[in-house]
């Protein structure tokens, strides 16, 4: 197969007037081809449009986006246009995606198997990124798992294909993407893409990442032989029904072909399931008020990450589900339930409750400004505390102060201690720690 551009071929960037030399073909899509290239000694990505997609409208949209700049470094944003006398049409320059970022499609195909922690981090970063995009009055229009990449080890995300982003409410042009990720009102033809419809697509993307399945593809989809437009319109537009709708099981997952969804659904805590249920019940019928907002997803993703516990037997990640456990409290304390993987009994690690957070103090746990300072919510940059093991007593665990501020700790007996930077406080039931702006209590 020949490509539009060849290695070594040079094009010119239109704003800075620099030479851009093509290194190699990276991939092709429906609109054009993407190449690795070099501009001024720096590796970049160059997308070149097919003739059918190289429209004047697309060019104008790219110029606007390049002038606005990226909402955050998470977006592989068009920086400037490129053209050449030797080849028709045009392209644009954007940052090159590092190899450590993998497609969510790779996860669907099990080429990568991220931890739940990485997945929750990716969910948090996606919600946060789209919040930043929408806050600038922009609309992505085409959120789907083909456009989001993440590092399977850390959960850091990158969002690609930003050339279809438009100013919200100006999106009157072509509708991109597939009905599978579109809000039902777009599939029905009742609305055009907007920040509000992006919210629906974001919910589908998150559901897909966590359940490895589409939220509306249950028995009804499994029965479809030919997924033509009328079938898609019905499934995703006129009669959408959540596969876990609490009041209607007419579209429940097919036991043979769709069992993954059911398996994953049961692993997650109730608060996550409830938010997905809202997204695909109220969010289907009430686009204005029923949709789950980016900020809701962000809060739930942090809570999910803070809820991870490890099975003492097989080490698998599980979730502390306070809502469900509350119903199973016995005289001997909470029954943490069984590990989803090895089915053996889980035991809970010490936990710390700080304002709105409850964090599982696993052996690898960290606390961040987000947890202890209301004015620095979602700041996960520098850890302020970490769980450590006592140097001489391996059964004793502590919380080490990594901040520059001295904490004050009060034990269950009322003893008051200072915890200077670099020092640790023993994890003991009832100990309260004042971090300066917030106080936390250790529970078992």
């Amino acid at each position, binding site marked *: *197969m*020949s*490509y*539009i551009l060849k290695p070594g071929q040079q094009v010119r960037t239109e704003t800075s007037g620099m030479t851009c030399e093509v290194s190699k073909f990276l991939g*092709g*899509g*429906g*609109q054009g081809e993407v190449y690795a290239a070099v501009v001024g000694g720096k590796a970049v990505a160059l997308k070149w449009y*097919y*003739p*059918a997609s190289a429209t004047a409208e697309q060019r104008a949209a790219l110029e606007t986006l390049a002038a606005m700049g990226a909402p955050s470094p998470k977006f592989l944003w068009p920086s400037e246009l490129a053209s050449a006398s030797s080849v028709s049409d045009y392209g644009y320059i954007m940052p090159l995606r590092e190899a450590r970022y993998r497609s969510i*499609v790779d996860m*669907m*195909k*099990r080429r990568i198997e991220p931890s739940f922690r990485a997945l929750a981090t990716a969910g948090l970063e996606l919600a946060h990124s789209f919040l930043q995009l929408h806050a600038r009055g922009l609309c992505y229009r085409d959120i*789907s798992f*083909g456009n989001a990449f993440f590092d399977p080890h850390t959960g850091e995300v990158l969002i690609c294909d930003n050339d279809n982003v438009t100013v919200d409410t100006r999106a009157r042009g*072509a509708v*991109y*993407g*597939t009905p*599978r990720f579109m809000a039902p009102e777009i599939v029905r033809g009742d609305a055009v893409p907007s920040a509000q419809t992006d919210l629906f697509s974001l919910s589908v993307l998150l559901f897909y990442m966590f359940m490895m399945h589409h939220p509306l593809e249950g028995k009804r989809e*499994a029965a479809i*032989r*030919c*997924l*033509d*437009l009328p079938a898609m319109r019905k499934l995703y537009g006129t009669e959408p029904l959540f596969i876990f709708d609490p009041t209607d099981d007419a579209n429940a997952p097919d036991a*043979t*072909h769709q069992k*993954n969804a059911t398996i994953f659904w049961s692993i997650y805590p109730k608060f996550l399931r409830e938010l997905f249920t809202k997204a695909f019940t109220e969010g289907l019928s009430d686009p204005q008020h029923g949709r789950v907002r980016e900020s809701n997803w962000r809060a739930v993703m942090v809570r999910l990450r803070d809820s991870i516990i490890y099975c003492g037997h097989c080490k698998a990640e599980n979730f502390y589900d306070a809502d469900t456990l509350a119903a199973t409290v016995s005289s001997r304390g909470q029954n943490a339930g069984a590990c989803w993987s090895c089915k053996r009994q889980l035991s809970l690690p010490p936990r710390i409750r700080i304002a709105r957070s409850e964090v599982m103090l696993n052996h690898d746990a960290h606390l961040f400004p987000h947890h202890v300072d209301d004015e620095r919510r979602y700041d996960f940059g520098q850890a302020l505390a970490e769980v450590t093991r006592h140097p001489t007593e391996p059964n004793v665990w502590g919380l080490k102060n990594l901040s520059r501020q001295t904490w004050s700790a009060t034990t269950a007996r009322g003893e008051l201690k200072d915890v200077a930077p670099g020092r640790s406080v023993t994890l003991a039931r009832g100990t309260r720690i004042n971090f300066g702006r917030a106080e936390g209590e250790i529970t078992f």
Partner: protein
Amino acid sequence: MPDDQFTTRRWRVVGHSVRGASHERAGTPNQDAIHWLPASSSDELPLVLALADGHGSAKSFRSETGARLAVETAAAVVRDFLKVQTESLSATKRMAEEWLPGALVRGWQEAVAAHLAAHPLSPDELDPPHASRHANAAAQIDSSNSLVAYGTTLLVAAVTESFILYLQLGDGEILNVSAGGEVSKPLPEDARLFANETTSLCSPDAWRDFRVCFQVVSHAPPSLILLSTDGYPNSFLNATGFLKVGSDILAAIRAGGLDAVNENIAAWLTESTRAGSGDDATLGLICAEDAQHDADASHTNEDTAGQNRNDAKTGDAFDGA
């Protein structure tokens, strides 16, 4: 999508499947299959070609049928899918990548279930009285995993006016040959396929294992698309030897026409399985009609049409096993 952006090309498909030399000796059937739509020679697009390689192992004792059901189902499912795609190329690409593999697997599983209902596994199949071929099969196959008896790979190429779609599950080769004779593989390699291991339509969640490529016909589309089950490429000493077949066949088509090449395919395959892998071998070709008399054949050494073709199939490229 403005149709006038694309020049309508005419395409033809030919292909053959031959029983492997080792299967002839063992008296087992050809467990490969090939099927295309439209079945009769016609200019109608989409054109869909499907090949399958039934596993033929002791557990997959119905893989001859599994392969046949795979190619028939796949050709129909892909054709029906393509006929209803009217949206943008981006949308079609996504549906092809995200939805179609699942539909192919479901279609095959249902065809297998219907065949099983009409022809339940017999005691002889599960516990053959004499042969060792099905040894231990009874212990391994029951109603919960009867799909394994039909296990097969699947390769599909589909040509429309504006794009070419490739889907592959398991081993086998799909090659593109450009007008200049340059040979390339549209699909990425699958690291899980090594030695005799293959992914299969009968695997749990088989849809995840599909490799899919969506190729827009915009700049320089291939002149020849070649699909082969692994019995053919495995007859070559190395991958390079097989890649050369692509450019050699295009040269042969230009030298003698597609019909002449078609008449020779079965003989080439037979020769290669006898001297090479011993496995069933199947080759399908989708050829752009303009490629047959492409004026720009200067990139290709026309002499290769005869001599090199023979070298590639019968000469030092064979491992002689």
